[in-house]
Protein backbone atom coordinates (compact mmCIF):
# COMPACT_ATOMS: atom_id res chain seq x y z
CA UNK A 1 0.00 0.00 0.00
CA UNK A 2 2.88 2.34 0.85
CA UNK A 3 4.48 1.66 -2.53
CA UNK A 4 1.21 2.45 -4.30
CA UNK A 5 0.77 5.72 -2.40
CA UNK A 6 4.36 6.70 -3.14
CA UNK A 7 3.94 5.88 -6.84
CA UNK A 8 0.72 7.91 -7.03
CA UNK A 9 2.35 10.87 -5.26
CA UNK A 10 5.37 10.84 -7.58
CA UNK A 11 3.16 10.45 -10.66
CA UNK A 12 0.85 13.29 -9.56
CA UNK A 13 3.82 15.52 -8.79
CA UNK A 14 5.24 14.80 -12.24
CA UNK A 15 1.95 15.46 -13.96
CA UNK A 16 1.28 18.68 -12.06
CA UNK A 17 4.74 20.24 -12.26
CA UNK A 18 5.56 19.57 -15.91
CA UNK A 19 5.10 22.69 -17.99
CA UNK A 20 2.62 21.34 -20.52
CA UNK A 21 -1.07 21.05 -21.27
CA UNK A 22 -2.84 19.43 -18.34
CA UNK A 23 -6.40 18.19 -18.31
CA UNK A 24 -8.76 16.71 -15.78
CA UNK A 25 -11.18 14.08 -17.05
CA UNK A 26 -14.25 13.09 -15.07
CA UNK A 27 -16.72 10.51 -16.34
CA UNK A 28 -19.48 8.16 -15.28
CA UNK A 29 -20.30 4.89 -16.98
CA UNK A 30 -21.77 1.43 -16.94
CA UNK A 31 -20.63 -1.91 -18.31
CA UNK A 32 -21.27 -5.63 -18.20
CA UNK A 33 -18.69 -5.71 -15.38
CA UNK A 34 -19.95 -2.76 -13.33
CA UNK A 35 -23.34 -1.32 -12.48
CA UNK A 36 -21.83 2.17 -12.20
CA UNK A 37 -18.25 3.31 -12.50
CA UNK A 38 -16.68 6.68 -11.80
CA UNK A 39 -13.47 7.78 -13.48
CA UNK A 40 -11.11 10.57 -12.58
CA UNK A 41 -7.97 11.17 -14.60
CA UNK A 42 -5.17 13.68 -14.89
CA UNK A 43 -3.50 13.84 -18.26
CA UNK A 44 -0.49 15.74 -19.49
CA UNK A 45 0.59 16.51 -23.04
CA UNK A 46 4.35 16.47 -22.47
CA UNK A 47 5.14 17.04 -26.15
CA UNK A 48 3.43 16.85 -29.54
CA UNK A 49 4.23 13.15 -29.55
CA UNK A 50 3.94 12.01 -25.96
CA UNK A 51 1.00 12.11 -23.55
CA UNK A 52 0.76 10.41 -20.15
CA UNK A 53 -1.36 10.52 -17.04
CA UNK A 54 -2.89 8.81 -14.06
CA UNK A 55 -6.42 7.48 -13.75
CA UNK A 56 -8.59 6.17 -10.94
CA UNK A 57 -11.69 4.10 -11.63
CA UNK A 58 -14.04 3.05 -8.83
CA UNK A 59 -16.98 0.80 -9.59
CA UNK A 60 -19.93 -0.97 -8.09
CA UNK A 61 -19.52 -4.57 -9.26
CA UNK A 62 -22.08 -6.21 -11.56
CA UNK A 63 -20.15 -9.28 -12.82
CA UNK A 64 -16.48 -9.77 -11.97
CA UNK A 65 -14.32 -12.52 -10.55
CA UNK A 66 -12.23 -13.45 -7.54
CA UNK A 67 -10.24 -16.65 -7.95
CA UNK A 68 -12.06 -17.31 -11.26
CA UNK A 69 -15.44 -17.42 -9.48
CA UNK A 70 -18.21 -14.93 -10.08
CA UNK A 71 -18.86 -11.99 -7.74
CA UNK A 72 -21.94 -9.90 -8.44
CA UNK A 73 -21.59 -7.22 -5.79
CA UNK A 74 -18.82 -5.35 -4.02
CA UNK A 75 -16.35 -2.73 -5.15
CA UNK A 76 -13.63 -2.65 -7.77
CA UNK A 77 -10.99 0.08 -7.97
CA UNK A 78 -8.31 0.38 -10.64
CA UNK A 79 -5.39 2.76 -10.49
CA UNK A 80 -3.71 3.01 -13.87
CA UNK A 81 -1.11 4.94 -15.81
CA UNK A 82 -2.10 5.45 -19.44
CA UNK A 83 0.27 6.89 -22.04
CA UNK A 84 0.34 7.36 -25.77
CA UNK A 85 3.03 7.96 -28.38
CA UNK A 86 2.25 9.50 -31.76
CA UNK A 87 3.31 7.25 -34.63
CA UNK A 88 1.96 9.20 -37.55
CA UNK A 89 0.05 12.36 -38.37
CA UNK A 90 -1.20 13.58 -41.73
CA UNK A 91 -3.67 16.44 -42.04
CA UNK A 92 -6.70 15.46 -39.95
CA UNK A 93 -5.62 11.90 -39.28
CA UNK A 94 -3.40 10.72 -36.47
CA UNK A 95 -2.19 7.29 -35.29
CA UNK A 96 -1.01 6.73 -31.71
CA UNK A 97 0.39 3.76 -29.88
CA UNK A 98 -1.72 3.65 -26.73
CA UNK A 99 -0.92 1.74 -23.56
CA UNK A 100 -2.06 1.43 -19.96
CA UNK A 101 -0.55 -0.28 -16.94
CA UNK A 102 -2.66 -0.57 -13.81
CA UNK A 103 -3.38 -2.25 -10.52
CA UNK A 104 -6.91 -3.43 -9.66
CA UNK A 105 -8.35 -3.98 -6.19
CA UNK A 106 -11.63 -5.86 -5.63
CA UNK A 107 -13.54 -6.66 -2.49
CA UNK A 108 -16.84 -8.13 -1.34
CA UNK A 109 -18.50 -8.80 1.99
CA UNK A 110 -16.80 -11.61 3.98
CA UNK A 111 -20.04 -13.56 4.48
CA UNK A 112 -20.71 -13.53 0.76
CA UNK A 113 -17.18 -14.76 0.07
CA UNK A 114 -17.81 -17.68 2.45
CA UNK A 115 -21.16 -18.44 0.80
CA UNK A 116 -19.54 -18.47 -2.68
CA UNK A 117 -16.63 -20.61 -1.44
CA UNK A 118 -14.05 -17.97 -2.43
CA UNK A 119 -10.45 -18.19 -1.24
CA UNK A 120 -10.58 -14.58 -0.04
CA UNK A 121 -13.00 -11.66 -0.03
CA UNK A 122 -10.45 -9.33 -1.65
CA UNK A 123 -8.23 -9.57 -4.69
CA UNK A 124 -5.40 -7.67 -6.33
CA UNK A 125 -4.90 -7.74 -10.07
CA UNK A 126 -2.60 -6.42 -12.76
CA UNK A 127 -3.85 -4.69 -15.90
CA UNK A 128 -1.64 -4.47 -19.02
CA UNK A 129 -3.19 -2.90 -22.10
CA UNK A 130 -1.36 -2.13 -25.35
CA UNK A 131 -3.26 -0.71 -28.31
CA UNK A 132 -3.57 1.52 -31.35
CA UNK A 133 -5.68 4.65 -31.55
CA UNK A 134 -6.72 6.40 -34.76
CA UNK A 135 -7.96 9.99 -34.37
CA UNK A 136 -9.82 12.03 -36.91
CA UNK A 137 -10.52 15.76 -36.60
CA UNK A 138 -14.02 15.49 -38.05
CA UNK A 139 -14.70 19.21 -37.68
CA UNK A 140 -13.39 22.14 -35.64
CA UNK A 141 -15.39 20.97 -32.64
CA UNK A 142 -15.69 17.22 -33.11
CA UNK A 143 -12.85 14.74 -32.81
CA UNK A 144 -13.47 11.03 -33.41
CA UNK A 145 -11.27 8.20 -32.29
CA UNK A 146 -11.36 4.49 -32.86
CA UNK A 147 -8.99 1.56 -32.73
CA UNK A 148 -8.23 -1.45 -30.66
CA UNK A 149 -6.66 -2.16 -27.30
CA UNK A 150 -5.78 -5.56 -25.86
CA UNK A 151 -6.33 -5.46 -22.09
CA UNK A 152 -4.68 -8.40 -20.30
CA UNK A 153 -5.80 -9.06 -16.75
CA UNK A 154 -3.92 -11.10 -14.19
CA UNK A 155 -5.07 -11.84 -10.67
CA UNK A 156 -2.08 -11.68 -8.33
CA UNK A 157 -3.80 -12.24 -4.99
CA UNK A 158 -5.28 -14.47 -3.47
CA UNK A 159 -3.72 -16.59 -6.24
CA UNK A 160 -2.01 -16.00 -9.57
CA UNK A 161 -4.42 -16.48 -12.48
CA UNK A 162 -4.39 -15.23 -16.03
CA UNK A 163 -7.96 -13.89 -15.99
CA UNK A 164 -8.56 -12.89 -19.58
CA UNK A 165 -7.46 -11.09 -22.70
CA UNK A 166 -9.95 -8.76 -24.34
CA UNK A 167 -9.99 -7.59 -27.95
CA UNK A 168 -11.40 -4.21 -27.10
CA UNK A 169 -12.76 -2.23 -30.04
CA UNK A 170 -13.45 1.34 -28.99
CA UNK A 171 -15.07 4.48 -30.31
CA UNK A 172 -14.69 7.90 -28.68
CA UNK A 173 -16.36 11.17 -29.57
CA UNK A 174 -15.05 14.46 -28.21
CA UNK A 175 -17.15 17.61 -28.63
CA UNK A 176 -15.42 20.90 -27.81
CA UNK A 177 -17.79 22.84 -25.57
CA UNK A 178 -15.40 25.75 -25.04
CA UNK A 179 -11.68 26.52 -25.27
CA UNK A 180 -11.19 24.74 -21.97
CA UNK A 181 -13.74 21.95 -21.94
CA UNK A 182 -14.65 18.91 -24.01
CA UNK A 183 -17.70 16.65 -23.75
CA UNK A 184 -16.59 13.01 -23.90
CA UNK A 185 -18.55 9.95 -25.03
CA UNK A 186 -16.83 6.57 -24.99
CA UNK A 187 -17.92 3.12 -26.12
CA UNK A 188 -15.95 -0.11 -25.73
CA UNK A 189 -16.86 -3.62 -26.82
CA UNK A 190 -15.13 -6.85 -27.65
CA UNK A 191 -14.74 -10.55 -27.00
CA UNK A 192 -12.72 -11.85 -24.06
CA UNK A 193 -10.87 -15.11 -23.72
CA UNK A 194 -9.94 -16.47 -20.34
CA UNK A 195 -7.82 -19.17 -18.90
CA UNK A 196 -8.46 -21.12 -15.69
CA UNK A 197 -11.91 -21.11 -14.17
CA UNK A 198 -14.63 -18.65 -15.06
CA UNK A 199 -13.98 -15.40 -16.91
CA UNK A 200 -15.64 -12.75 -19.03
CA UNK A 201 -16.56 -13.84 -22.53
CA UNK A 202 -17.59 -10.45 -23.90
CA UNK A 203 -17.07 -6.98 -22.48
CA UNK A 204 -18.83 -3.73 -23.25
CA UNK A 205 -18.93 -0.34 -21.57
CA UNK A 206 -20.44 3.11 -22.10
CA UNK A 207 -19.09 6.29 -20.54
CA UNK A 208 -19.86 9.99 -20.65
CA UNK A 209 -17.98 12.84 -19.04
CA UNK A 210 -16.14 16.13 -19.31
CA UNK A 211 -12.52 17.15 -19.86
CA UNK A 212 -11.28 20.42 -18.40
CA UNK A 213 -8.06 22.36 -18.95
CA UNK A 214 -6.24 22.86 -15.67
CA UNK A 215 -3.60 25.44 -16.60
CA UNK A 216 -4.80 29.05 -16.47
CA UNK A 217 -2.76 30.09 -19.49
CA UNK A 218 -3.68 27.04 -21.50
CA UNK A 219 -5.19 28.04 -24.85
CA UNK A 220 -5.92 24.60 -26.25
CA UNK A 221 -6.95 21.20 -25.02
CA UNK A 222 -5.78 17.84 -26.38
CA UNK A 223 -8.76 16.30 -28.25
CA UNK A 224 -7.50 12.69 -28.00
CA UNK A 225 -9.59 10.85 -25.40
CA UNK A 226 -8.28 7.79 -23.64
CA UNK A 227 -10.09 4.52 -24.38
CA UNK A 228 -10.89 3.84 -20.74
CA UNK A 229 -12.20 0.35 -20.35
Amino acid sequence: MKIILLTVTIALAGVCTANAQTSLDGSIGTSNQDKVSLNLALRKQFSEKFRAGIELQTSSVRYRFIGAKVIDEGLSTTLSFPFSIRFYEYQKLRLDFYSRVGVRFQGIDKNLATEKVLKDNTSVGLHLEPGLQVSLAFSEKINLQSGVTLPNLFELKPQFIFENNITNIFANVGYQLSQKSILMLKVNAGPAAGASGDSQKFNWSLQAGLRFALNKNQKSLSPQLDPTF
Partner: protein
Amino acid sequence: MKKIFITLVLLFTVFIAIAHDAVSSNPNKIKIGWFVSPEYSTMFLTGHNGLAVGFLMGIKLFKGHLKVGYFNYGRSGPINRYTVNTKLPTGVTYKGKSSIDLRADYGAFGLMIAPSFTLPKSNVEIDFPVNIGSIGAGFYLAGNDRKTPDGRRVSEWENELFEGKDAAFA
Protein backbone atom coordinates in the same frame (compact mmCIF):
# COMPACT_ATOMS: atom_id res chain seq x y z
CA MET B 1 -28.97 -5.73 -24.46
CA LYS B 2 -29.95 -6.21 -28.10
CA LYS B 3 -30.49 -2.47 -28.53
CA ILE B 4 -27.14 -1.67 -26.95
CA PHE B 5 -25.42 -4.13 -29.26
CA ILE B 6 -27.08 -2.73 -32.40
CA THR B 7 -26.09 0.80 -31.33
CA LEU B 8 -22.49 -0.30 -30.83
CA VAL B 9 -22.40 -2.01 -34.24
CA LEU B 10 -23.68 1.13 -35.97
CA LEU B 11 -21.21 3.36 -34.14
CA PHE B 12 -18.24 1.20 -34.97
CA THR B 13 -19.31 0.79 -38.59
CA VAL B 14 -19.11 4.58 -39.01
CA PHE B 15 -15.61 4.68 -37.54
CA ILE B 16 -14.34 1.86 -39.75
CA ALA B 17 -15.33 3.84 -42.85
CA ILE B 18 -13.56 6.96 -41.57
CA ALA B 19 -10.30 5.17 -40.91
CA HIS B 20 -10.20 3.60 -44.36
CA ASP B 21 -11.22 6.67 -46.33
CA ALA B 22 -8.74 8.97 -44.66
CA VAL B 23 -5.80 6.75 -45.55
CA SER B 24 -6.77 5.78 -49.05
CA SER B 25 -7.51 9.35 -50.20
CA ASN B 26 -3.78 10.19 -50.20
CA PRO B 27 -2.18 7.42 -52.25
CA ASN B 28 0.58 9.60 -53.76
CA LYS B 29 1.82 10.96 -50.44
CA ILE B 30 2.14 7.62 -48.65
CA LYS B 31 4.37 5.00 -50.28
CA ILE B 32 3.83 2.49 -47.49
CA GLY B 33 0.42 3.01 -45.95
CA TRP B 34 -1.16 1.54 -42.85
CA PHE B 35 -4.56 0.46 -41.71
CA VAL B 36 -6.33 -0.28 -38.44
CA SER B 37 -9.73 -1.76 -38.95
CA PRO B 38 -12.15 -2.72 -36.17
CA GLU B 39 -14.59 -5.23 -37.62
CA TYR B 40 -17.89 -6.90 -36.85
CA SER B 41 -18.84 -9.91 -38.93
CA THR B 42 -21.87 -12.12 -39.37
CA MET B 43 -21.87 -15.75 -40.38
CA PHE B 44 -25.19 -17.08 -41.68
CA LEU B 45 -25.71 -20.52 -40.16
CA THR B 46 -28.69 -22.88 -40.17
CA GLY B 47 -31.26 -21.45 -37.77
CA HIS B 48 -29.14 -18.58 -36.46
CA ASN B 49 -26.49 -15.99 -37.24
CA GLY B 50 -23.01 -16.19 -35.75
CA LEU B 51 -21.53 -12.80 -34.80
CA ALA B 52 -17.82 -12.14 -34.39
CA VAL B 53 -15.82 -9.09 -33.31
CA GLY B 54 -12.22 -8.43 -34.23
CA PHE B 55 -9.71 -6.20 -35.91
CA LEU B 56 -7.15 -6.06 -38.67
CA MET B 57 -4.01 -3.96 -38.73
CA GLY B 58 -1.01 -3.79 -40.99
CA ILE B 59 0.65 -2.07 -43.89
CA LYS B 60 -0.37 -1.28 -47.46
CA LEU B 61 2.16 -1.95 -50.22
CA PHE B 62 2.33 -1.37 -53.98
CA LYS B 63 0.22 1.81 -53.92
CA GLY B 64 -2.34 0.12 -51.69
CA HIS B 65 -2.81 -2.94 -53.92
CA LEU B 66 -1.53 -5.37 -51.28
CA LYS B 67 -2.34 -5.39 -47.58
CA VAL B 68 -0.25 -7.44 -45.18
CA GLY B 69 -1.08 -7.54 -41.51
CA TYR B 70 -2.42 -9.21 -38.41
CA PHE B 71 -5.97 -10.38 -37.79
CA ASN B 72 -7.71 -11.22 -34.53
CA TYR B 73 -11.33 -12.34 -34.23
CA GLY B 74 -13.47 -13.58 -31.39
CA ARG B 75 -16.93 -15.11 -31.41
CA SER B 76 -18.17 -15.11 -27.87
CA GLY B 77 -21.27 -16.29 -26.07
CA PRO B 78 -23.09 -13.16 -24.90
CA ILE B 79 -23.47 -11.85 -28.47
CA ASN B 80 -24.30 -15.34 -29.75
CA ARG B 81 -27.16 -16.53 -27.61
CA TYR B 82 -27.78 -19.66 -29.66
CA THR B 83 -27.88 -22.50 -27.14
CA VAL B 84 -27.61 -26.22 -27.83
CA ASN B 85 -29.22 -28.72 -25.45
CA THR B 86 -26.88 -31.70 -25.23
CA LYS B 87 -27.51 -35.07 -23.59
CA LEU B 88 -24.95 -36.20 -21.06
CA PRO B 89 -23.49 -39.73 -21.21
CA THR B 90 -25.59 -42.41 -19.53
CA GLY B 91 -25.40 -42.20 -15.76
CA VAL B 92 -23.91 -38.67 -15.75
CA THR B 93 -26.01 -35.81 -14.39
CA TYR B 94 -25.45 -32.12 -13.69
CA LYS B 95 -27.66 -30.46 -11.08
CA GLY B 96 -29.94 -33.51 -11.35
CA LYS B 97 -30.38 -33.11 -15.13
CA SER B 98 -29.35 -35.60 -17.81
CA SER B 99 -28.82 -32.83 -20.39
CA ILE B 100 -27.07 -29.45 -20.33
CA ASP B 101 -27.38 -26.15 -22.21
CA LEU B 102 -24.23 -25.27 -24.13
CA ARG B 103 -22.98 -22.29 -26.06
CA ALA B 104 -19.99 -22.13 -28.40
CA ASP B 105 -17.21 -19.60 -28.84
CA TYR B 106 -13.97 -19.25 -30.74
CA GLY B 107 -10.95 -17.02 -31.11
CA ALA B 108 -8.63 -16.77 -34.10
CA PHE B 109 -5.48 -14.83 -34.91
CA GLY B 110 -2.69 -14.80 -37.47
CA LEU B 111 -1.35 -13.32 -40.69
CA MET B 112 -3.63 -11.63 -43.20
CA ILE B 113 -2.66 -11.07 -46.84
CA ALA B 114 -5.15 -9.22 -49.03
CA PRO B 115 -4.95 -8.12 -52.64
CA SER B 116 -6.83 -4.83 -52.70
CA PHE B 117 -8.44 -2.74 -55.45
CA THR B 118 -9.96 0.71 -55.38
CA LEU B 119 -13.10 1.21 -57.44
CA PRO B 120 -12.57 3.85 -60.17
CA LYS B 121 -13.48 7.44 -59.20
CA SER B 122 -14.22 6.48 -55.61
CA ASN B 123 -12.59 5.79 -52.27
CA VAL B 124 -14.20 2.37 -51.97
CA GLU B 125 -11.67 -0.43 -51.59
CA ILE B 126 -12.38 -4.11 -52.18
CA ASP B 127 -10.13 -6.59 -50.39
CA PHE B 128 -9.73 -10.33 -50.93
CA PRO B 129 -8.25 -11.40 -47.58
CA VAL B 130 -6.50 -14.71 -46.99
CA ASN B 131 -6.01 -15.49 -43.31
CA ILE B 132 -3.35 -17.92 -42.08
CA GLY B 133 -3.22 -18.53 -38.37
CA SER B 134 -4.45 -20.37 -35.35
CA ILE B 135 -7.95 -20.94 -34.00
CA GLY B 136 -9.28 -22.11 -30.67
CA ALA B 137 -12.91 -23.15 -30.23
CA GLY B 138 -14.98 -24.68 -27.49
CA PHE B 139 -18.28 -25.25 -25.74
CA TYR B 140 -19.23 -23.93 -22.34
CA LEU B 141 -22.07 -24.13 -19.84
CA ALA B 142 -24.55 -21.30 -20.30
CA GLY B 143 -26.88 -19.26 -18.10
CA ASN B 144 -27.71 -20.61 -14.66
CA ASP B 145 -25.69 -23.74 -15.36
CA ARG B 146 -22.56 -21.62 -14.76
CA LYS B 147 -23.53 -21.55 -11.07
CA THR B 148 -22.01 -24.84 -10.00
CA PRO B 149 -23.84 -26.94 -7.36
CA ASP B 150 -20.80 -27.32 -5.08
CA GLY B 151 -18.99 -23.98 -5.38
CA ARG B 152 -16.23 -25.43 -7.49
CA ARG B 153 -15.03 -23.53 -10.55
CA VAL B 154 -17.26 -23.93 -13.58
CA SER B 155 -14.23 -24.96 -15.68
CA GLU B 156 -13.66 -27.97 -13.40
CA TRP B 157 -17.22 -29.12 -14.02
CA GLU B 158 -16.91 -28.48 -17.77
CA ASN B 159 -13.73 -30.55 -17.92
CA GLU B 160 -15.41 -33.41 -16.07
CA LEU B 161 -18.64 -33.35 -18.07
CA PHE B 162 -16.85 -33.15 -21.42
CA GLU B 163 -13.98 -35.40 -20.32
CA GLY B 164 -11.55 -32.57 -21.15
CA LYS B 165 -12.83 -32.25 -24.71
CA ASP B 166 -14.69 -28.97 -24.25
CA ALA B 167 -12.11 -26.98 -26.25
CA ALA B 168 -9.60 -27.55 -29.03
CA PHE B 169 -6.91 -25.59 -30.85
CA ALA B 170 -5.72 -25.84 -34.44
